[in-house]
């Protein structure tokens, strides 16, 4: 049994404010991560979502709290949009026990089973079989959930992608496949890795509905995701969204970006999803500079507090090192 949320009218000003706030939240959170990483406070791989915020926020609008999400290692945005508390996500960046994965996962492995957020999966393509299985469980039980599965364009080259497209379509499983096509698999451009660069076309060949979507326009993403999710929920089998987007920063925190030109990055930055929405709202008289500044300040305070809490949180005792290997410790 699932209870559908009453969808807010996407045309209301309030709703647009909310979309803007969520995207800014992700942006500010990640900018803080860059600063903390540079200072050596958080380590490991940290993959930033900056530039792609419209995808996480837009797709999440189509889901109910009862739906499932299976994500990738570039999942800060998905996690925050899903509503995992920022304090828990930040504590996870610090590897603290108060983190959403008790500190064991770090940036790439954010989990929240209570919010049906199943990672945080860092093997490219490895999350697709999981999503397929989660959806299979729902289908067998008759639960009307949608499983949203995020992955990048790089995953499309993996065997697991094709195995899962086939299996999900064959069994008509309720999966919403969300391919975040940001044009680069780490440093390899799409056309250097894929014989057919029209990814929606490839998904379609498995007999499922597939649409390309402007991933820099949060309203377009939301609209497409709502239509797809409704169809999935109604028993229409898996759907595929190719969300065309762009990451503004390096693959993982810092790289010399030898694989793309500065002009290209600058060109995409012109289409910044946050600026785009804010611009439209300003033009329509829905947003003032003061309002925008106020939102920013509020978010900054919230994020600063999460940093303070994460720093202060206790580190897990080394005595507990081998916890969470088995559900019950073997004798």
């Amino acid at each position, binding site marked *: 049994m699932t209870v559908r949320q009453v969808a807010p009218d996407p045309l209301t000003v309030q709703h647009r404010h909310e979309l803007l706030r969520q995207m800014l939240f992700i942006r500010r959170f990640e900018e803080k991560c860059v600063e903390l990483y540079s*200072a*050596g406070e958080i380590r490991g791989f940290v993959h930033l979502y900056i530039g792609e915020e419209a995808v996480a926020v837009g797709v999440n609008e189509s889901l109910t709290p009862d739906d499932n999400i299976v994500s990738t290692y570039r999942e800060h945005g998905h996690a925050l949009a899903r509503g995992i508390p920022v304090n828990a996500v930040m504590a996870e960046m610090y590897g603290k026990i108060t983190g959403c994965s008790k500190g064991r996962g770090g940036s790439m492995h954010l989990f929240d089973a209570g919010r049906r957020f199943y990672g945080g999966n860092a093997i490219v393509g490895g999350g697709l079989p999981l999503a397929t299985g989660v959806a299979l469980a729902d289908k067998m039980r008759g639960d009307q959930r949608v499983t949203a599965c995020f992955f990048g364009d790089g995953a499309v080259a993996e065997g697991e992608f094709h195995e899962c497209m086939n299996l999900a379509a064959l069994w008509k499983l309720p999966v919403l496949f969300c391919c975040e096509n940001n044009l680069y698999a780490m440093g390899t451009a799409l056309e250097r890795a894929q014989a057919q660069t029209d990814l929606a076309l490839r998904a379609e060949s498995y007999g499922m509905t597939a649409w390309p979507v402007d991933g820099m326009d949060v309203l377009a993403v939301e609209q497409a995701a709502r239509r797809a999710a409704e169809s999935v929920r109604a028993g229409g089998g898996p759907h595929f969204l190719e969300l065309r987007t762009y990451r503004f920063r390096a693959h993982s925190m*810092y790289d010399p970006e030898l694989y793309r030109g500065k002009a290209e990055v600058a060109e995409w930055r012109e289409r910044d999803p946050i600026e785009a929405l804010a611009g439209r709202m300003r033009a329509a008289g829905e947003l003032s500079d003061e309002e925008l500044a106020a939102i920013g300040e509020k978010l900054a305070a919230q994020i600063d507090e999460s940093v303070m809490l994460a720093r202060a949180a206790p580190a897990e005792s080394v005595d507990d090192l081998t916890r969470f290997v088995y559900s019950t410790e073997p004798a």
Partner: protein
Amino acid sequence: MPALGADMDEGTLLEWLVKPGDEIRKGDIIAVVDTSKSAIEVESFHTGTIERLIVGVGETVPVGTVLATIAEQAAAAAPAAAAAPAAPVGPPEAAGPPEPQRARKRPAREPAARAKQRRQPVITSGKAQPAAASPLVRHLAEELRVDIATVQGTGPGGTITRADVQRAAIAGAGVAEPVTLPPQPGVAVTAAQPTPARPTVPVTARQPVTPLARRIAAELGIDVSKLTGSGSRGAVREADVRMAATARAPTQAPAQEREQAMRQAIGRLMARSKREIPHYYLSNTVDMTAAMDWLHQRNRELEVTERLVPAALLLKATALAARQVPQLNGYWEDDRFAPGDAVHLGVAISLRGGGLLTPAIHDAAELAPGELMAQLRDLVNRARGGRLRRAELTEATITVTNLGDQGVESVFGVIYPPQVALVGIGKIIERPVAVGGLVGARPVVITTLSADHRASDGYAGARYLAAVSDLLQRPEEL
């Protein structure tokens, strides 16, 4: 210097994109840094005016070093590009001759001056600074009996290499006696080196002995090197050791000597006690019903390894009582009583084949009966295996002798000087006891006290035995 990757310890400043006085905004690129991977741009996390550039182009500094300071608008200067505190930065390393990458690795904050000094070739004259040598090389030197301090190192930074040691061995420098090079791959002396004729002593093969045989031989005091093995490749096996043990003369000198020495030591100590200490003796019969019931109940639920024997409860009670009556817990030294800092309970342990040891259970009054039991078992096992630690043999503040297992009813012991009391424990036996006017059979034990009259009087001793008895009536609180 920002951390630009998980594996980055330091970076080299390639280029400044700003100069003092420049206005910058948060997010602006201000410099380019070379990491071991590639050149990467550094952004500012602050908005303000560049005040001063601290690290110069070409300098290599550890992560966390302040690169420049930024004056925030109408505010004090803030360290740029790094939240970590400033660290002193030495001269640029890259300016020196090119070195292998590995040599530059060093703790991030180590002052450069010291690192530089370490890079100088090590001079190995005399006993000055010993040159660095790997464990492998040290091991080789030991085998070849080469004094490592006399070897001139030719490795990176003057470290001593295997070749250096081999050369030294051949040249005879520092060689104490003729050696044979062990047949180790890679250790063979190179043919190019003139090898002076030297006697070749064949390495006698070590007698193969199975681990079990070696263990049992050690326990039985048998020298395995004299045995002929019946196992594969002539290995001495358990059976060979057992056979040798049977064949051995029943009385063996070393064991006998050890026993004799122990007897003499006990004799001297006990004679001193009786000579110097005015003993007084008290005894008390303690009802053990509550203690035995509690023990039985508890043991029923436990695995063998965790079960308690009555002695554990009795020891705990004697230790707690000693804390309650401190006049009995300590030493008589220099004509005065010095109370113990805690109750370290000496336990008299008889050894198989004769003899006696009284190791101590430290802080016995603080231990739960289970812990005390575990320590008791451990002590007995180690005492009988001859593996006691020195401190355990010297630090008892009061001693207990329990001869109950041997059927003795009451013990009147001799105090271990300089201690001032010895508690005796007899066998727990069923005795008819009148309780509330009715006679019934109850388990009882006789506890005794031998005490030093110089340190305490009979009244204290009586309080002590009463305390032991009281404690045993509430075993659950022990």
